Every structure is written in structure tokens, then in C-alpha cells.
């Protein structure tokens, strides 16, 4: 086989299909992580501006701590820490009469019933569990950034709005949900869109968490192949595979940029900001 035909056969091997599917993994990660991180962020921001002091400290400590340390360290840390934490909890519940210590020298030993996932479970369970841990880690780290953005946005809503709401006799809770939250999004949007861009660019770190993502497959498929192991031998093509990933991310960023610009225009509608005023003047 030659030229184009060879290439088209080569690009549709089973492994390449797995490679294409792993782009789906990345998109799935983004689709799950973004709302989860928003939830963490909203919780963090609410805690940080709460009226109960310990809760407020907790919220602020969460924001400050996660943002002060290189995130890659958090990614490496949380995956093991979460894994061990979950296994430890299950161990406490399922094997209460276990008398040996959990940390034996360099080993972390829990009873086999507490293993997560169970040693007998099929492969896809292991993969799903790994992916879930990754999502949770991403959500915790990006939740802190989102919390910071939302915290700032809540403070940016003009104070007069809150005072008016209180003058109308709204309770604290009503003011928060009916006045503050609907108005804060336009202030949060620049920060959140920035965060989205950063989140897109953080997805290759999935590779470090042991998920078979696009980086894994690009390295796997691009490496030089001899005729002994495959019907499609080639030299070291990893450079081209990573060029492909580079282009993928550039395109993704560009599309997001266009979309977020439109969203900003939409949300500015009727807001007392520079953008909103400009819209009113033109229409």
C-alpha cells in the first residue's frame, strides 16, 4: 500500500480509534469538571463571605491554600490523598476488627474488602474510578479559583442594590438569591472565562493522573514502530502527533473565545456596566 491509501488505513486502526475517543475523554472531563468546579466555587465563595466566623475562615483558607502552591503538585497530591482517604474510611467501616496499623513502613495496607475499587471488579470500573478521582481533583483545584472569582463578583455588585432590597424588607437570604446572585454573573464573567481557558489548557495534566488521555495515546502511537509488532511500521512520529494536539488546543481556545465574547454581549444586556450602556446607545 502506498501514499494516501496507506495513510487512510493507518489512521483508522483500532488504536487510532481509541486515540480519537480519548478526545472525547477530554471533552467529558471539561463537561463534568466545569459545573463541579462552579459548585465548589460557589460553596467556597458563600463560605468566605458567610456570617459564621469558622465557616468564613474555612472558605478563605481553601481559596488561599490551593492558589498558593503549584497546581501540578496538587494534582499529584490529591489523587493519592483522595484514594487513601476513601480507602481509609471504607476500612474503618467495613473492617472494624482489623488490628494491624494501616501504615506499615512504606506500605499503605487496608483490608481487601475496603479496596477501592474491589480487586475483583472489571477493568472499566478501575478506569472509571481513576477518572472520577481526576474529576474530583480538578474540581477541588479549580473550585478554589472559581471561588475567588465569585467572591470578588459578589462584592462588585453595587451596594445600593443590596440596600434597596433591604429597604423593601427582604431577608438576608432573599437578598442573596434574588438580588445578588442574578446580578453578579456579569462581574464574574471575565474571571470565569479566563478560568475556562485555563481549564482547557490544564486538561493534558490528566496524563499525570494515570488516565489514558490524548497525551498518553500520542506518545504511544507516535513512537517508532517496527514491522515485527505492527502492520504499519514508521519512524518516530511523536512530533507530528503532538503538533496535532497543539492545533487541537489552539482551535478549541479560539472557538471558546468567540463563544465567550458572544456570551458577554448577551449578559451585558440591561446591566449598569460600560458594556451594557454601550449596547443601549447603539440600539
Amino acid at each position, binding site marked *: 500500500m502506498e501514499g494516501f491509501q496507506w495513510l487512510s488505513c493507518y489512521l483508522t486502526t483500532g488504536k487510532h480509534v481509541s486515540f480519537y475517543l480519548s478526545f472525547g475523554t477530554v471533552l467529558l472531563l471539561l463537561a463534568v469538571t466545569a459545573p463541579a468546579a462552579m459548585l465548589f466555587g460557589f460553596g467556597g465563595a458563600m463560605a468566605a463571605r458567610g456570617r459564621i466566623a469558622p465557616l468564613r475562615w474555612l472558605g478563605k483558607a481553601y481559596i488561599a491554600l490551593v*492558589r*498558593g*502552591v*503549584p*497546581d*501540578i*503538585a496538587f494534582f*499529584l*497530591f490529591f489523587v*493519592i*490523598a483522595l484514594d*487513601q482517604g476513601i480507602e481509609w474510611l471504607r476500612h474503618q467501616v467495613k473492617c472494624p476488627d482489623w488490628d494491624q496499623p494501616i*501504615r506499615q513502613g*512504606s*506500605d*499503605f495496607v487496608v483490608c481487601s474488602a475496603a479496596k477501592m475499587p474491589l480487586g475483583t471488579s472489571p477493568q472499566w470500573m478501575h478506569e472509571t474510578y481513576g477518572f472520577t478521582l481526576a474529576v474530583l481533583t480538578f474540581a477541588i483545584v479549580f473550585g478554589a*479559583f472559581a471561588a*475567588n472569582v465569585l467572591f470578588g463578583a459578589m462584592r462588585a455588585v453595587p451596594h445600593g442594590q443590596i440596600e434597596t432590597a433591604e429597604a423593601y424588607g427582604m431577608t438576608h437570604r432573599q437578598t442573596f438569591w434574588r438580588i445578588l446572585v442574578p446580578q453578579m454573573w456579569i462581574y464574574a464573567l471575565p474571571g470565569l472565562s*479566563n*478560568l475556562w481557558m*485555563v481549564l*482547557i*489548557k*490544564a*486538561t*493534558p*495534566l490528566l*496524563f*499525570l493522573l494515570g488516565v489514558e488521555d490524548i*497525551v498518553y495515546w*500520542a*506518545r504511544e502511537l*507516535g513512537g517508532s514502530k517496527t514491522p515485527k509488532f505492527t502492520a504499519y511500521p514508521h519512524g*518516530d512520529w*511523536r*512530533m507530528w502527533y*503532538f*503538533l496535532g*494536539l*497543539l492545533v487541537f*488546543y*489552539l482551535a478549541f*481556545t*479560539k472557538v471558546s473565545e468567540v463563544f465567550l465574547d458572544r456570551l458577554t454581549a448577551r449578559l451585558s444586556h440591561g446591566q449598569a456596566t460600560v458594556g451594557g450602556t454601550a449596547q443601549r446607545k447603539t440600539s
Partner: protein
Amino acid sequence: MSCLQTLQDYGLRSLGIGERLLPRSDFTLCEQFVLIGSGLIWNVYFGLLAVTAGFFFATALAIAKSTQNPVYRKPAEWFIFLFRGSPLFIQFFFAYFLFLQLKTVNPFFSPLTSAWLGALLVLFLNTSAYSAEIFYGALRSIPKGDIDAADAYGMTGWSRFRRITWPTMLRLAWPAYTNEAIFMFHATTLVYFSGFPTWQQKGDALYYANYFADKTFNPFVPYPILAFYFILLTLVIIGVYGQVNKRLNRHLPQANRAKLKLRMNLIR
């Protein structure tokens, strides 16, 4: 073994000086502190050189992007988009494999495949792109009155740039540029996880932290140590950049001075 002995053995281990074998069992807290600290030398090396060299290139790029002439503007725009629009992690991988290919063409390129030069080059280009965008934003927000005043004094070209435009640009960009420097130092931890090989286990701080976490299966000691070092490093950067910020703002009345507002640590 006393801690002083450990310091002698492993203090410069990341540069290949001292004990050859890394500790293999019975890790003491001191060993972890010393080795991770030793790895920090590489983070400082990468960060310092990339940020310093990137500063000049970024200035050039920002000026190129703000000129009318498309011959200069277009390449600068594309360069900035290329490096800001894609993950640093992928850039590292791509660059490493590119350098490997170049090496087969000509042995002249072989130093590029080792981290000390290859990764430094990528970090330099990356920080240049990010800083250039910051500087470009600052260039566009220079008060028109400043330029008018310079014109009224008869300053043009280079002297106007050196005495008015450039200092004002730096002053406006400095708080954001401080954040960029902090990101850069944090981003240096990616180097040894992205294709660039560690030779004789000479790695950076995260490399050693990861080594300990793998060996002891206990992430709760090495990573907090790493966090401690990086928070310290961040504080040093804030201190140095704060001094520069003070100097850049020294002619302004107290109330108008730009405060350093820190938005730390977003990944690329």
C-alpha cells in the same frame, strides 16, 4: 546520620554533587527537606533565566504587536496566540520531540534535548508570549496626555520611548507582570513531567517530592514540604517585585500608586 551530614551529601544532589545514590529506605524528614530543597535550585534556575530573558523579548513583541505595520504586527500576534492558546505541557512535549528530530539531522542540536537548555527555551518563549500580552495591554493604556507632553517637549523616537513610553508601560504592567513571574516559577515544575528526561536523577523539587511520595506511598509529607518551599519562593518574588514596583511609582503621589494585587497561580 545527622542532618548536617545529610545536607552535605544531598544539598547539591540535583546538580550531581555529593552522594550518588538517593536514599532508598527509612526516609528521614531531614532527607526529604534537603533533597526537595536541592531540587528547588533547578526551579530557580529555569524561572530566573526564563523571566529575565523573556522580559526583553516580551518588550520587543509588545512593541511589534502595537505597531501599525502588519509586517511586524502579524508575526507578533501569531506568536502570542500560539503560545498563549495552547497548554505549556503540550508545548514541552512537542518541543522535546522536535528537538529529538533535529538531533538526528545535526548533532549541533543535541544539547536542546536535555532539560537545562531545551526546557529553558520553551519556558522563555512561553513567558515572553504571556508577558508580551501584558505589556501590550499596558502600552495601549498609557495616558494620551503623557505622549502629548513628550511631543510638546520635542521628544521623538527612541528618546520618547526610553524616557516616557517604556517606564509608563512598565509601571502600568508591573502588578500583572508580578503574577506572571509567579506563574512562571510555578510552571517550572512541569519540566520533568513532560518528556524531558532526568539524567542520573538530577531533577527539580517536584521530581524529588514525587520520588518520595512514590517510595513511601505517603503524599502527606513530601508535598507539604514542596508547598512550603514554593510559598517561600513566592514570597521572595513578591518582595523583589514589590521593591521594583515601589521604584517605578516613586514619582507619584501616595494615593495614585499602583498596589500589587496578587492573583496567584493559574496553570497554563
